[in-house]
């Protein structure tokens, strides 16, 4: 297994805008050189104001997402209130560290809006959290997407601009990466709504 993080392939990216955040991911689910499906979901709406994107080993993407769903549901029922995005961001870090010696092979990005303020956090697979001011990438196409982000990103973009920039960055990156692509999905979250757009990438 040359790289358990590269086995399934896939890329994610998260970005902050002015009172909004955006997440994007590719749609490929592969097993090394083979492509199995082209509609695999990697960004999940955890709550009305929180998005969780996961890249890495797909089985762990699914399991970790299910674990976070369970945590937030139980929290909502026990505490009788919604979870704040910063709290969820910390929960992800604790949950990852709990498996310090048998980790989830995922690199998550959490994005949310807390009282209108954008929140963006990323982690390594054992829960080292970094809070970010601009954007963050994950997955096999990550480094390619970084390049595009650095070029196109500017702070305090509107939701429309943000959607355009994150979309273009994802597409440029995934088109270069052999293990990512087969379509992209862009999520833009504002106080009012969540918009989801499906993009076309190079179909290879």
């Amino acid at each position, binding site marked *: 297994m040359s790289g358990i993080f590269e086995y399934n392939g896939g890329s994610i990216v998260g970005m902050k805008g002015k009172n909004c955040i955006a997440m994007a991911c590719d749609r490929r689910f592969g097993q090394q050189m083979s492509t199995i499906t082209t509609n695999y979901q990697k960004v999940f709406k955890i709550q009305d104001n929180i998005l969780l994107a996961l890249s890495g080993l797909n089985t762990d993407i699914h399991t970790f997402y299910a674990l976070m769903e369970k945590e937030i549901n139980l929290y909502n029922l026990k*505490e009788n209130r919604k979870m704040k995005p910063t*709290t969820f961001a*910390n929960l992800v870090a*604790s949950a990852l560290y709990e498996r310090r010696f048998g980790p989830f092979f995922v690199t998550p990005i959490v994005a949310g809006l807390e009282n209108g303020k954008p929140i963006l956090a990323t982690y390594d697979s054992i829960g080292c959290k970094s809070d970010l001011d601009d954007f963050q990438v994950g997955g096999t196409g990550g480094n390619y997407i970084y390049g595009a982000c650095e070029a196109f990103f500017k702070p305090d973009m509107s939701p429309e601009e943000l959607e355009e920039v994150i979309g273009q960055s994802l597409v440029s990156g995934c088109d270069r990466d052999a293990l990512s692509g087969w379509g992209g999905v862009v999520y833009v979250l504002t106080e009012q709504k969540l918009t989801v757009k499906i993009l076309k990438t190079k179909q290879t």
Partner: protein
Amino acid sequence: MTDFALTTFSSKGKLLQIEYALNAVAKGDTAIGIKAKNGVVLVVEKKQSSILVEESSVQKVALLTDNIAATYAGLGPDFRVLAQQARKLVKKYDLKYQEEIFVQTLSRELAEDVQVATQRGGIRPFGVSILIAGYDEEGPHLVQLDPSGAYYSWKATAIGKQAKNAKAFLEKRYNADMEIEDAINTALLTLKEGFEGQITPTNIEVGVIRDDHVFRILPPSQVKDYLEELE
């Protein structure tokens, strides 16, 4: 550790051990709590068995975290154990969520431990009623936790020896528009009502939290000022 529960139902459907625990609470030194619009106050009797006791070494109001504290009526050592347990619960929550725990959440989790003592094999219920006071995002809170594990939110309440009389006094004095300074005065007045002997700054303990979310146990000098105001 025995295999069987010590607290079992009587034919009338009562758990006598819990009733007896409540008796222990009813014998304890009075504690009063009042929730104001902008804060909460806890006041507790600190009667010493002898003048030889080092008064300052006895701490009846225990800080659970920066913005939550508790006091009790009943068995001192049982309170000590529960206070420590509560502090651990706060930290456990903090490690997981890195967020300030809500008073209701802490009360519920601590109540779980108290209830376990009424059902697990070989152990007896806790012989204390606890008053938890705190100020969190939702506002000021005052919660009473009983030996049964039941917990109730109060606007104002009293536990211990003078509970009945104190609550009757509070029912007349309490109003929803109370500010914290009024609440402190009312709490001290209420305690004074049923106090055996002379009330002094060293035979009571006063803890206050305001909307700055910082719980403070008042030093005797400040308590002295409040007591003088009552005259």
